[in-house]
């Protein structure tokens, strides 16, 4: 966590000019300022085989443990969704940045994943875990 914060701090100057010059007025310049640090889906592949858990997790070999990361800056990437509350919260944040935080970048659509593993040396289970895989992200 500390390393992540330090990395982000070091990367501060990398913010786009649109972000740094963004007008605090809610009806101000709405020019696109989407950047790679805006809310988006990120991929982290978890390999059960690499972790040497494949002797008891039969399938899958691993999975894309997608997660949501980034800031909720408007307008969002065309693939992103935002709740009405997030849009209103953004406007209020722009008016009172110290009082109201930006909306959160979080999953908007989740899907299940099936995992096949041994319960013990003889019994096996194929279990569907609901809402485990992030399919899309958005601002809440």
């Amino acid at each position, binding site marked *: 966590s500390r390393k992540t914060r330090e990395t982000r701090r070091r990367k501060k100057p990398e913010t786009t000019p649109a972000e740094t010059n963004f007008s605090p007025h809610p009806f101000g310049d709405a020019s696109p300022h989407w950047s790679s640090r805006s809310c988006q889906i990120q991929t982290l592949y978890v390999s059960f085989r690499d972790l040497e858990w494949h002797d008891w997790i039969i399938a899958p070999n691993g999975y894309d443990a997608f997660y949501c990361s980034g800031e909720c800056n408007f307008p969002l990437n065309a693939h992103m969704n935002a709740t009405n509350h997030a849009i209103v919260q953004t406007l209020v944040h722009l008016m009172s940045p110290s009082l109201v935080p930006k909306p959160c970048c979080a999953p908007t659509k989740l899907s299940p994943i099936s995992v096949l593993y041994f319960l013990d040396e003889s*019994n096996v289970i194929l279990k569907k875990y609901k809402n485990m895989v992030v399919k899309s992200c958005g601002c809440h």
Partner: protein
Amino acid sequence: GLYVDNGVDRTVMARSLSRSERQEVEHEILNLLGLPSRPARAPPNSAAPQFLLDVYKSLLDESNFNISGREQYAIHESDVIMSFTSRSDFHQSGVRHERGRHLWFDVSEVPAGEAIVGAELRLYQNPGLHKNVVIQVYELVVDNGEKALRLVDTAAATGGWLVFNVTGPFTSWVAFPDSNQGLYLSVHFPDKPGHELHPEDVGIASVKGSDASKQPFLVAFFKSSGHRTSR
């Protein structure tokens, strides 16, 4: 390893996890899966894991779904599918001349709160042997202190995997674990019901058979109640 956002489009490894951190992560995943500890390694090529692996693959590729309508329904309706290998060594039925005919399954690990959609006993019969026999599956019950047999399902021996509906006994075993006395196989010619044959003599693979991929097993389908245990 421990990964951080590289600021563009992916994560990069910052450092490797230590052994203790790795164990902690493993414990977290086991906890998520609902397991108290890492399961023991199972014998390779056994029939039950292979069956569930085929089900798993069929879920990924529905166009390649080559199983019966009833089973397809059960698979799609289920949130959890469990297979149980017969452990007749662990339990004696008390039925005479039972060798190879008695099957017992440890169903104590069925998760609480799961609704049972169905249960099947799957036996493999060598396709080249005695197709004109009848196989009957009985539930062993204790009636007034005496052991008795209750007919569960019947099938004609067609060779290959034979499927018997054992939902009734399975539901009873989960609800009343002490009632689990196992199942009894009766094999006979259609015109000689009193003359029982030994299952192995008609090509039915036994628990102690040399080919693990043909051993009998029980598979149960469950619908999740939506209740989640607290971590």
